[in-house]
């Protein structure tokens, strides 16, 4: 009777916990009934059990029937979107790494070019697999919790009036626009996480080797790095939302506004962190005579930070307003 247990296990193991016991009991009863039927006289034999199990068929198919849906890692509802996102992520990662490595090669040429090419391919393959794996994991989680992406929620009955307008060209979001945004965010993440010392003023003089005065104090920057990463991830989420919605709707404009506010707050916290700006960077302004000695360095650093902040506020304001205007225009065409 070991096969009986194995069969029941094979059917029930992938079923939801809640139903498992009940189905197991019922299935056991069924098989025993069928066995009793087969062995009209006396004890059922092994052959009888085989015959009964063959009649019941493949346990995987039976389990599918009980579940009334097939198991997918990523189901047909989400697959198109999944494939699309994988392509973008892999391309962005490859591009970002190429750029980062090219820059670091130009700045600081290592001994052997062969080594660079080798490490280039291994990092690209490595990172592409990571990107692929993470996207897959996220989509698999969506699948597990039965989240269907890309299908718009509908509350009311469809009427022909609900048909989407043929949008004017400028009101459709061009995927390229969003993809460029994602690529830049990925590049920025790579840059900030691996090479913050490259951000700064490049001093090229004829006699000495060129050098960089980093903009940020490395230790403080590393400490505040998670903030920057969150900001950039929000940026990516923002662009992906644009791709998903595809049109300048009100919802999109509001979400955009929300993302922008969060980003701005994070940026202000980031830029105001104590000692973020590199001292050498501040003093450089004095050495080239751009700032008179009479101004206190801490005051200078304060006004630089103010400058950055104002710049960020204006940029985000423009982005939010442009988005809102586009959504108003989009609604007028309805």
């Amino acid at each position: 009777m070991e096969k009986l247990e194995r069969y029941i296990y094979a059917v029930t193991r992938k079923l939801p916990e809640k139903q498992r016991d009940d189905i197991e009991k019922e299935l056991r009863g069924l098989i025993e009934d069928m066995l009793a039927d087969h062995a009209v006289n006396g004890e059922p034999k092994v052959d009888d059990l085989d015959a009964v199990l063959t009649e019941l068929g493949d346990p995987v198919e039976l389990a599918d029937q009980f579940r009334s849906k097939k198991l997918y890692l990523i189901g047909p509802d989400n697959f198109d979107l999944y494939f699309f996102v994988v392509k973008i992520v892999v391309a962005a990662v490859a591009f970002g790494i190429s750029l980062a490595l090219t820059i670091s090669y130009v700045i600081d040429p290592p001994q052997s070019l062969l080594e660079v090419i080798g490490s280039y391919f291994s990092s690209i393959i490595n990172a592409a697999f990571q990107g692929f794996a993470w996207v897959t994991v996220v989509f698999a989680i969506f699948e597990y919790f039965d989240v269907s992406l890309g299908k718009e929620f509908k509350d009311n009955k469809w009427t022909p009036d609900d048909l989407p307008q043929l949008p004017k060209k400028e009101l459709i979001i061009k995927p390229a626009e969003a993809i460029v945004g994602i690529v830049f965010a990925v590049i920025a993440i790579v840059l900030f996480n691996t090479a913050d010392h490259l951000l700064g003023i490049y001093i090229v003089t004829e006699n000495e080797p060129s050098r960089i005065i980093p903009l940020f104090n490395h230790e403080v920057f590393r400490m505040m790095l998670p903030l920057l990463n969150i900001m950039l991830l929000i940026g990516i989420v923002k662009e992906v939302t644009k791709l998903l919605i595809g049109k300048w709707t009100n919802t999109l404009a509001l979400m955009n506004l929300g993302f922008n506010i969060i980003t701005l707050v994070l940026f202000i916290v980031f830029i105001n962190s104590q000692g973020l700006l590199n001292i050498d960077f501040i003093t450089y302004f004095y050495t080239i005579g751009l700032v008179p000695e009479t101004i206190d360095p801490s005051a200078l650093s304060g006004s630089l930070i103010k400058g950055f902040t104002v710049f960020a506020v204006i940029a985000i304001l423009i982005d939010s307003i442009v988005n809102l205007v586009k959504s108003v225009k989009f609604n007028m065409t309805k």
Partner: protein
Amino acid sequence: MEKEEIINGLILELRRGAVTLGVLSRLSEPHYGYSLVQILEESGFPIEPGTLYPLLRRLEKQGLLVSSWDTNENRPRKYYRLSELGRSVYNRLCDEWRSLSERVSVLINK
């Protein structure tokens, strides 16, 4: 071979709704799964246990059937019967079936 496959697929589609109707028709009285298999087979309407058991669960989940475990016999058995909702749904389905089969008969006999 391919033709047979097409035919089998279409027959399966045709039978799908009828199977539900056949099952509901026997459940004014409580029955457990395997007794239903036998009853339906005797009535010339065989249905595989692998189809019937999941179907019974689906119908129960939809509220058309109610079930109870009988543990008095030598093996515990889960008995299903029509609920109030199931009865009225069944009556509606019967009307629908009759008019459908009438209309299809008219169509295919011409």
